[in-house]
């Protein structure tokens, strides 16, 4: 099947209002208003009045009817009344007896002609119909739901006209239809919930439905009767049957009905604010005539329904708005109560999924995607966010055909053909999305889309009504149900609520920041005191001890000398400790001045320094690959000095101490390993490794403050890197430092 060869407008182009024939159960004459001379007559008119159309055409009505049993005088009098009152509405139908049989005459005036139509008088029950109308009126006044009202209207119309099946058929915004209420005989399959493509009721047919509110097709199997015109009547002025009650049915529509096993049909228009809202569509499996009064009764019930629609529909919109608003209120309360935005919006009984009729919802917050219901996957949602970010959109986007705006959405159209999204923060890439599934996934289509295309005698492809489904399905691909105003309104409000909570939290963070700033200031003051006021007396203790030893050493006994040496050693340890603490406290705050660092040079410098202090022992430091790192140079020196001097320290007991450094460039990061063959440590204590002042048991005899590795950790964290290690007691330790190879902060 190649959709491109379909002629979808075929139905739309059919001039159904000037088909040139009427249904054969009735008869038609059209007369000029001034002379009542006949200009059109249906071919079957002879059946009614015994004279052929040819004989009648061109004659004034009194002459034409002189030989018939239809009283010309009575008819003329009737027409005079109608013309004078300029309205036929109140006069229809008028009963006339012809050859002892009663006929209903229905008259209207259109395009300069008076059109007279006779149809049979049925076996209608006026009393019962009036009762049904009264019930309908009561029901409309009572406060019932719209769906109840529709269902009962279907029942009532079915009782009035006696068809097998009465459906209420609602048009969607794209004019495809949807059966929303149904009354039927038990043996028939239900059509409830079925969707019909828009092409089933083409545009010009819909226009006629707006003008002519009731339409009866009494027998699809009968042959229509042609309308003949008086000989000199211009060919380009065929009789316009727009207002005719007998108007014949287009062959395409007959075919449509036949496919549905329907031999009589009737439809009544449902109007909402001047537009066609839906139809009461009635089917009968065998031919059935519904007389004018019954049609009028059914029409009246339907008009009552139309009136009810005007406010009931508003009410239902209101109530769904109320429903979403209520859920929005719950969400707001959850937000205020919890202040954990993700939890409040996605993890409670009422979630963002309840804010719309969407089939899925997602929150992108703090870099994480949270999904509810049926949604595209995480990556697809992130892609969508990127697209929204790039396209300078308003804070809210709604579409019922996302793939047409954003082609990648075609991949996930089954869950996301429609999108409603709000921006929480463009900078932080934070969004809430609601998705609607592709409509094709959701609906049950009436008819069989796979039925082959019919080919006309002239070889043209023509779409029969039933086969138009396939084309229609093509047509509505990538489309979801539209977003209702109530949904959008609820979402707009939610956005405000969420932003308010975010702002509130931001203010709290700001207050915290202020307090933190205060604490930092105090820490600064403390650091200064440590650095100066504590170090100064310490220096004095140290210096005077040295002076005592130097200048009075000869007067002291060896014990006193040793004690002075202990004082001096203690001040030395304290000095080192103070220096480390200061360095540690500054590490968190000093500005990072990152640059690419020549690691070979840096490591060789550190090695040289360590080798000077280790000149009395056997120590080998090998430097392998040295890919550059991006870091603050001072901190990098501190980092590697600490790690290498640690390694040197803990290999002191080895006969042959070996330290190996090697760098490895991998994806986006550089990893340096520092391996030694020193005392190692028990991995059970590894958790304490980087804690300030923590020292491991087996390192007790080694000098150290417990600050060195804490500084190392801080430096690594400041650079957005990682540090880890592996160690075995008495086997040595390996440290691994990974630093991002791109600029940080």
């Amino acid at each position: 099947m190649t959709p491109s060869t379909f002629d979808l407008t075929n139905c739309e182009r059919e001039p159904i209002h000037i088909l040139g024939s009427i249904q054969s159960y009735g008869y038609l004459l059209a007369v000029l208003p001034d002379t009542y001379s006949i200009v059109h007559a249906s071919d079957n008119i002879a059946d009614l009045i015994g004279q052929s159309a040819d004989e009648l055409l061109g004659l004034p009505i009194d002459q034409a009817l002189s030989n018939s049993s239809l009283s010309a005088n009575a008819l003329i009098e009737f027409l005079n009344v109608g013309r004078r009152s300029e309205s036929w509405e109140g006069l229809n139908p008028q009963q006339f007896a012809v050859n002892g049989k009663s006929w209903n005459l229905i008259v209207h005036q259109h395009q300069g002609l008076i059109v007279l139509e006779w149809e049979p008088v049925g076996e209608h029950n006026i009393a019962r119909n009036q009762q049904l109308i009264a019930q309908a009126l009561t029901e409309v006044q009572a406060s019932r739901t719209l769906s109840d009202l529709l269902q009962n209207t279907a029942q009532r119309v079915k009782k009035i006209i006696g068809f097998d099946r009465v459906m209420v058929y609602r048009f969607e915004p794209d004019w495809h239809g949807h059966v929303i209420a149904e009354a039927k005989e038990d043996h028939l399959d239900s059509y409830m919930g079925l969707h019909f493509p828009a092409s089933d009721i083409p545009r010009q047919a819909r226009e006629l439905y707006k003008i002519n509110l009731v339409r009866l097709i009494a027998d699809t199997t009968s042959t229509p009767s042609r309308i003949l015109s008086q000989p000199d009547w211009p060919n380009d002025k065929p009789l316009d049957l727009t207002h005719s009650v007998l108007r014949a049915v287009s062959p395409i529509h007959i075919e449509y009905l036949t496919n549905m096993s329907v031999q009589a049909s009737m439809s009544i228009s449902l109007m909402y604010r001047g537009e066609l809202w839906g139809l009461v569509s009635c089917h009968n499996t065998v031919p059935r005539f519904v007389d004018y009064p019954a049609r009028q009764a059914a029409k009246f019930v339907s008009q009552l329904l139309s009136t009810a629609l005007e406010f009931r529909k508003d009410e239902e919109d209101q109530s769904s708005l109320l429903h979403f608003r209520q859920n929005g209120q719950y969400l707001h309360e959850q937000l205020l109560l919890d202040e954990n935005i993700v939890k409040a919006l996605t993890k409670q009984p009422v979630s963002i999924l309840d804010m719309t009729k969407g089939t899925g919802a997602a929150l992108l917050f703090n870099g994480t995607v949270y999904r509810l219901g049926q949604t595209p996957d995480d990556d697809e949602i992130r892609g969508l966010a990127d697209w929204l970010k790039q396209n300078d959109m308003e804070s809210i986007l709604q579409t019922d055909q996302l793939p047409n705006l954003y082609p990648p959405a075609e991949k996930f159209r089954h869950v996301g053909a429609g999108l409603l999204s709000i921006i929480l923060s463009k900078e932080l890439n934070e969004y809430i999305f609601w998705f609607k599934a592709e409509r094709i996934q959701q609906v049950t289509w009436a008819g069989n889309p796979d039925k082959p295309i019919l080919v006309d005698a002239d070889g043209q492809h023509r779409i029969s009504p039933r086969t138009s489904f396939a084309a229609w399905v093509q047509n509505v691909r990538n489309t979801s149900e539209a977003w209702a105003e109530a949904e959008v309104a609820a979402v707009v409000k939610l956005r405000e609520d969420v932003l308010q909570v975010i702002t509130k939290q931001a203010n709290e963070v700001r207050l915290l920041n202020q307090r933190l700033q205060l604490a930092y200031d105090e820490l600064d003051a403390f650091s200064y005191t440590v650095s100066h006021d504590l170090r100064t007396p310490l220096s004095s203790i140290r210096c005077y001890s040295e002076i005592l030893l130097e200048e009075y050493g000869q007067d002291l006994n060896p014990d006193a000398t040793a004690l002075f040496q202990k004082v001096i050693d203690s001040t030395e340890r304290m000095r080192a400790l103070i220096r480390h603490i200061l360095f540690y406290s500054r590490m968190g705050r000093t500005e990072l001045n990152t640059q690419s660092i020549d690691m070979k040079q840096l490591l060789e410098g550190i090695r040289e320094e360590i080798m000077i202090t280790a000149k009395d022992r056997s120590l080998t430091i090998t430097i392998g690959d040295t890919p550059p790192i991006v870091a603050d140079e001072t901190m990098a020196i501190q980092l590697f000095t600490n790690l290498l001097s640690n390694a040197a320290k803990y290999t002191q007991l080895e006969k042959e101490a070996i330290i190996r450094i090697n760098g490895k460039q991998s994806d986006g990061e550089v990893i340096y390993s520092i391996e030694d063959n020193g005392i190692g440590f028990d991995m059970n204590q590894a958790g304490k490794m980087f804690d300030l002042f923590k020292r491991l048991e087996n390192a007790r005899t080694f000098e150290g403050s417990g600050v060195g590795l804490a500084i190392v950790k801080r430096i690594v964290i400041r650079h957005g890197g990682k540090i880890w290690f592996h160690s075995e007691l008495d086997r040595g330790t390996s440290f691994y430092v990974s630093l991002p190879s791109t600029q940080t902060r």
Partner: protein
Amino acid sequence: MVDMIDVLYVEDNENDADIFSRLMHKMGRPVTYTILSSGSEALDYLAGQGKYKQQLTPLPKLLLLDLNLVGLSGIDVVHKARQHDRTRYLPIIAFSTSDSPSDVRSAYEAGINAYVVKPGTYQDTGALLTHLYDFWLERNTRIYSK
């Protein structure tokens, strides 16, 4: 022109001043020095004002300046000294316990010639002063004010 002294040391910590004096006396050569205990006194001395008004105070070849002084700070002293013709080019060395980068920076910005951290031990201080003398008194070429 008045004779110059070698060093003017501004230090409000008595112990540090004392240790300095002891080290001066241990120097292998004669060194002339004056110790003042506050920034404002140092400025008076350098400018020949206040209680030094009637005296002709000898300019030092080197001003050794503790930064953390009670009252006027060492940085203030540098600022003021640099505004005065007589001391605009006087070599000033900041001599401080602090090695905080921000202290070092602001001292340089005020116009010091060098920043030296107090070593904290007697021996190291002695060695440092010997080096300072070698360089600033022997090697360094001075601009004398008019």
